[in-house]
């Protein structure tokens, strides 16, 4: 049995998946040259972008699909006559099932990393269960890419459910998770020549070198290192880095009420914002810019690996690319490694 399909079959198959799934893949905006993850429903499936993915990370952070900005997590009534008034209730409708296509190894890996702190989070896990990631390994890296330095690889498949590879005369599709296999079976069962490869990727990868290195370092020595004020000096404390970052996963929760109906919202928060750590007492343990900047890097490269193993950075380079004042995380990693 063949393990590959040709170009036309691939596009046809994707068209077919639209019956049961929303399909998103990186598309380039013709006017600005910027790549975004767009819903195929809004356009026709563009065979060119599908077959030959545009190089570079999409502006859209893949976390949007697992931690929507904002996410309604519960609803409630504020009508006191209602027997269930002020009781949080689950949502009736589930979000549609989705396919994310041509996802880069860094972005796919970010989902696997975020799944660690969100292991018991029903909302994140619910969206994970309804989303299939079809990854595409990288043939081209950018000047801002540094996945290998933080434990990833342009050929990595961690976090992908299915990997799509270009082979001679076509493409091969390989399921890497049970979810991926079930998806291929569901959508491709009547397609000739599609072979489900053996499920792999359940073996626990060894911790990347950088994670081992950071875990061995003394936390307070890193925390009190002399370079933080210098790193923070140009920072304007906006949230561009944290909101574009696929592995920044902090959130805040608020209730919004309109009339007698209320919803509980979970939305992105950023450690760059003063409100992030403001206590009800008025005290703010991270009241100064330098403390907030330090936290972003300490969280990614010390607190997270200490607790979960790998570092919380996939080296996609979005923060490097879009920081308004060119704070380059790679330089900060070097400074931290030198401690």
């Amino acid at each position: 049995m063949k393990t590959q399909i040709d170009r036309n079959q691939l596009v046809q198959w994707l068209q077919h998946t639209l019956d049961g799934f929303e399909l998103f893949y990186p598309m380039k905006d013709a006017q600005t040259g910027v790549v975004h993850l767009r819903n195929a429903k809004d356009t026709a499936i563009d065979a060119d972008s599908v077959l030959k993915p545009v190089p570079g990370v999409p502006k859209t952070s893949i976390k949007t699909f697992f931690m929507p900005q904002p996410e309604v997590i519960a609803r409630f009534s504020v009508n006191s006559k209602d027997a269930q008034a002020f009781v949080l209730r689950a949502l009736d409708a589930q979000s549609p099932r989705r396919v994310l296509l041509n996802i880069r190894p860094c972005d796919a890996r970010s989902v696997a990393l975020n799944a660690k702190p969100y292991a018991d989070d029903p909302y994140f896990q619910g969206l994970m269960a309804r989303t299939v990631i079809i990854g595409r390994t990288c043939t081209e890296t950018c000047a801002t890419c540094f996945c290998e330095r933080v434990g990833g690889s342009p050929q990595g498949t961690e976090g992908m459910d299915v990997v799509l590879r270009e082979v001679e005369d076509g493409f091969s599709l390989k399921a890497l998770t049970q979810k991926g296999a079930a998806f291929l079976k569901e959508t491709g069962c009547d397609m000739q020549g599609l072979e489900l490869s053996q499920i792999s990727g359940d073996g626990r990868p060894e911790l990347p070198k950088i994670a081992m290195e950071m875990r061995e370092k003394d936390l307070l020595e890193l925390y009190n290192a002399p370079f933080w004020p210098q790193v923070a000096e140009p920072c304007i404390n906006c949230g561009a880095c944290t909101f574009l970052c696929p592995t920044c996963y902090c959130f805040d929760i608020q209730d919004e009420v309109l009339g007698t109906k209320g919803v509980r919202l979970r939305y992105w928060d950023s450690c760059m914002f003063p409100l992030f750590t403001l206590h009800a007492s008025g005290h703010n343990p991270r009241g100064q810019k330098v403390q907030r900047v330090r936290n972003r890097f300490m969280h990614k490269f010390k607190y997270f690996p200490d607790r979960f193993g790998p570092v919380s950075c996939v080296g996609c380079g979005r923060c490097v690319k879009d920081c308004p004042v060119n704070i380059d995380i790679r330089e900060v990693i070097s400074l931290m490694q030198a401690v």
Partner: protein
Amino acid sequence: MSSKYLELTQEIRRQARELLASGEVAAFLGFTAGSLSMTTRPFVARTPEDAEKLVWNSFCVVNLANYLPALLKSLEPPRGPKDPPPTGPLPKVGVLATGCWSRNMVVQAQENQVDRSRLVILGVPSRGMVDRKNVVAALKGKEVLDVVEDDHVLRVKGKWGEEEISRWSVVRDNCQSCTHPNPVIYDRMLDTPSERASQAPFAQIEAIEAMSANERWQWFTQEFSSCIRCYACRNACPLCYCTTCFVDDNRPQWVGKTLKNPDVLTFHILRAFHCAGRCTDCGACESVCPMGIKVRLLTKKLSKDVLTLFGVEAGMDITIPAPFTTYAPSDQNPFECDTCSSTNKKE
């Protein structure tokens, strides 16, 4: 680097070194080279040796005035909230200023955010700064690895080859429509004043004004639809210095936190109105926006209104109060609504 910028970089380094070495300033605020092409990093030189790291080129898009209040404060002797303010002269800061940045320093002085006497302003007439997003758009998204600046041409290099782009074609909108490229206050001038002045400073605004109300709403909602609420526009703005911004306040909650239209648009429109009569159209908000939103068109419209109604441009004269901090009986007060055609003209 173009010969012009090479000369200016040398001159900036020389003057900063001299100011720091003589002790006239305790710190010098400028830019150093970024780690990527088309980027610069705001940089504080504290020793004469540091001054060698300063650079000047077309990508100095962040407004340095934004850093002044905190930098000046950091140089004051530490004191508690109830201690009296320090007496005697306080350490000074040297800073680079183009036309718009110098006007922001005027606004900061008018609003008591910055003590003019503690600044040593090195004036640099602006040739217009380049927004790297414009370069990326001109190249249809191809990755730029290196840019060599000639006086009027950017030679852009990538893995794909090399291309020449006219510098002016990628200069920021605010610089293209600028009428005050020269610093309005300075202690030393580093170059001969520029003679450029846009003939149509409000052309972009007039195009939007010419739209119907529906079209304008369409434009507004569409333009701001990609906002991620990172607040880079606000934080890059020297006018935004409130201790707690209205969007950060949650007791009471003025604005919702979502990316839905009412929340996003409320943030942007209110931020813009907070800048009315104070904005110098430095374009930092737009340059730093990671999503490429044309943020400054809102504040530019308000600049046009303030100029039309009060005959004032922000930050042009340090001796007069800002238009919205003062009142004159002759102030105009018309209100016309083109959708319901109601008018409320002052008798």
